[in-house]
């Protein structure tokens, strides 16, 4: 019996040591992902919906830039489609919808490229990442197609190719990362004929947005949507009305992953709680066993 107990202790100690070793190695990796590096010069786009004319050229250009079938631009000048509330989908990374509510406005929608994206936090394999220039991009080589990013996204943006048996993709706006890395403007910004879209450094865009509100207080609702929502987004919106609760869902200013990350890290906290539970259970097992053997010996 004493032999067994010694072995028991030895093994417990070995487990403790190896788990501690594992824990000392792993958190480094995870911490690197906790705090995405947000560059001071990260980019953004300011969407001035009071300027937008709903021509849908951005949709057309976006399709071209991402290798989707574009079709003729004439077909895009169609008021009926504008009135349908469409969502970005697997073959349309951006859509323009018309909202009629004390006046009419057309609003372009696409991935907001959150500052602290829920999709990045959620992704089981870390296939989605926030890049230094602000864009949130998806990596086809890692994705397992679990669609947890879609569950997590507060703006309901990622789309999934449900009808593909092999290599279905998560599809969303990638902020034209290929074009911007070559020094070009995102396709939608580039084509916009009325400059409703302004590409630039996010901080400067916020200043510009506030300047516009200050200069034309009658024209704008006094709020830059995306400055603080879900911890801030790269895409910022100006409008004559409050877009929250109408065009966009009502969202708080806490970062998009919310408390889920702190819970997750609380449960794990460098593997201390699991090891503590293990030790506790081991202790209980050992003690109750001792009682048993005593009983048997009597």
């Amino acid at each position, binding site marked *: 019996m004493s032999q*067994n107990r010694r*072995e028991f202790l030895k*093994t417990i100690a070995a*487990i403790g040591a190896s788990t501690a070793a594992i824990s000392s190695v*792993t*958190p480094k*990796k*995870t911490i690197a*992902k906790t705090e995405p590096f947000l560059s001071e010069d990260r980019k953004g786009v300011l969407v001035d919906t009071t300027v937008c004319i709903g021509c849908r050229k951005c949709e057309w250009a976006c399709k071209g830039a991402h290798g989707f079938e574009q079709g003729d631009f004439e077909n895009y000048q169609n008021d009926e489609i504008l009135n349908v*509330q469409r*969502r970005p989908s697997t073959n349309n990374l951006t859509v323009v919808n018309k909202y009629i509510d004390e006046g009419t406005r057309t609003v372009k929608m696409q991935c907001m490229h959150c500052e602290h994206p*829920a999709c990045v*936090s*959620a992704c*089981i*394999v*870390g296939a989605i990442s926030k890049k230094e220039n602000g864009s949130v991009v998806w990596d086809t080589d*890692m*994705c*397992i*197609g*679990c*669609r*947890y990013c*879609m*569950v997590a996204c*507060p*703006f*309901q943006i*990622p*789309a*999934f*190719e*449900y*009808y*593909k*048996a092999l*290599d*279905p993709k998560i599809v969303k706006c990638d902020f034209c990362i290929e074009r911007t890395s070559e020094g070009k403007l995102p396709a939608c910004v580039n084509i916009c004929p009325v400059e409703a879209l302004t590409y630039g450094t996010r901080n400067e865009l916020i200043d510009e947005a506030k300047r516009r509100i200050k200069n034309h207080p009658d024209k704008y609702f006094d709020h830059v949507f995306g400055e603080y929502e879900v911890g801030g987004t790269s895409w910022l919106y100006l409008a004559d009305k409050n877009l929250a609760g109408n065009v*966009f869902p*009502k*969202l*708080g200013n806490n970062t998009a*992953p*919310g*408390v*889920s*990350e702190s*819970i*997750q890290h609380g*449960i*794990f906290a460098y593997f201390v709680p*699991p090891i503590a539970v*293990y030790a506790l*259970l*081991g202790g209980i*097992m050992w003690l*109750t*066993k001792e009682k*048993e053997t005593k009983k048997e010996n009597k």
Partner: protein
Amino acid sequence: MAHLHIPTPISKKYFTPGVIILALIAVNGLIFLAGRFLFGIGSVTNLNDQYPWGIWIGLDVAAGVALAAGGFTTAALGHIMHRDKYETIIRPALLTAMLGYTFVAMGVFVDIGRWYYIWHPLVMWNGNSALFEVGICVMMYLTVLYIEFLPMVTERFMGKVNLPGFLSRFNKIVDSILHSLDRGLSKTMFIFIIAGVVLSCLHQSSLGTLMIIAGPKMHPLWQTPILPLLFLLSAFSVGFPMVIMESLTASRSFGLKPELDVLSSLSKFVAPLLGIYLIGKLGDMVIRETFVYLTEFNLVSILFGVEVIIGVIVPLRMFLAPAVRKSPTGLYIASMLVIFGVLMNRFNNFVTAYSPPYAVESYFPSIGEISVTLGFVALEILFYRLFVKIFPVISIPSDKAHIKTKYAIRGAVK
């Protein structure tokens, strides 16, 4: 005890009318699954960009994990707290957990779009992701469950290895491998038993963390930061009812006398566990003042009411009554209600509560989704029946002298 209860392979014949019906349900599910693998997830499910997760995640995975809680709760009771009385129910509970988790893994496998990348989380880590934690823990726990089951395999075949045909020359080698495996396992089994309980606590709670990130997309009746705790507490409380239900079902199906004294004393644990869960659930509701949503009379509030009243409060009251705990019928009904309650809770958390901001239609599972889910359940029962026929899982009264062993998982039982 008048008789020794010794785990023995059941000798009853496999095929009965019920088994054939189950087989048909299973085949039906597999046909729809073939469609999923040939034409994509969209071809057999009602999932879309608004509702990325349906009952394959809500029931097959989330409820599947919860209902397999019998494995770790009985292991904690029987092995860690050394309540020897309950050792006869550990093996059946372990088998159910093993099959349950295998089908949880199957559920994940068919639900993810790129099933051939299911191993990615092993090498690509995202410590921020609750899903990553669930995935890793489930994989590890599944391995632990297979290891915990191994002693039943060695016990069944040690000294009886008889390979067919020319393979018979390996009989001796295989037998000696089994012997050394058995010796190794009996020395190290406690490591896996404790690990199994720890891993279960971890992923049962992390499963609750999963939906927190959905934030305002989830109905406030369910969306709460204490979801992980509620998931863990409900898993604790459903473990024993699940074991009781299985034991009674198996006794009936195999014409055995139900082990009522064991099940009755096991059922004493249920009411306190359910009570703690209920306090957590209602306390959270009071603190966050979400009861205002119950004044609206709609599908959501009805489903919440069904989950809490029929699934928690009624069985809680039943398990408090000694008359119920002493009668097989009472135990069966009360256990079924707890199981139903947890099933509803997982369904509500993952399906009912989820309402995306730009939804144009609501989600209801397709015939394909329901077929696959039912098919998996049927397959699980069929495998259970097969395994108890092959391996010494279910304890039946025996006059033979029992073998004394260290861990009941591998030995016989007083």
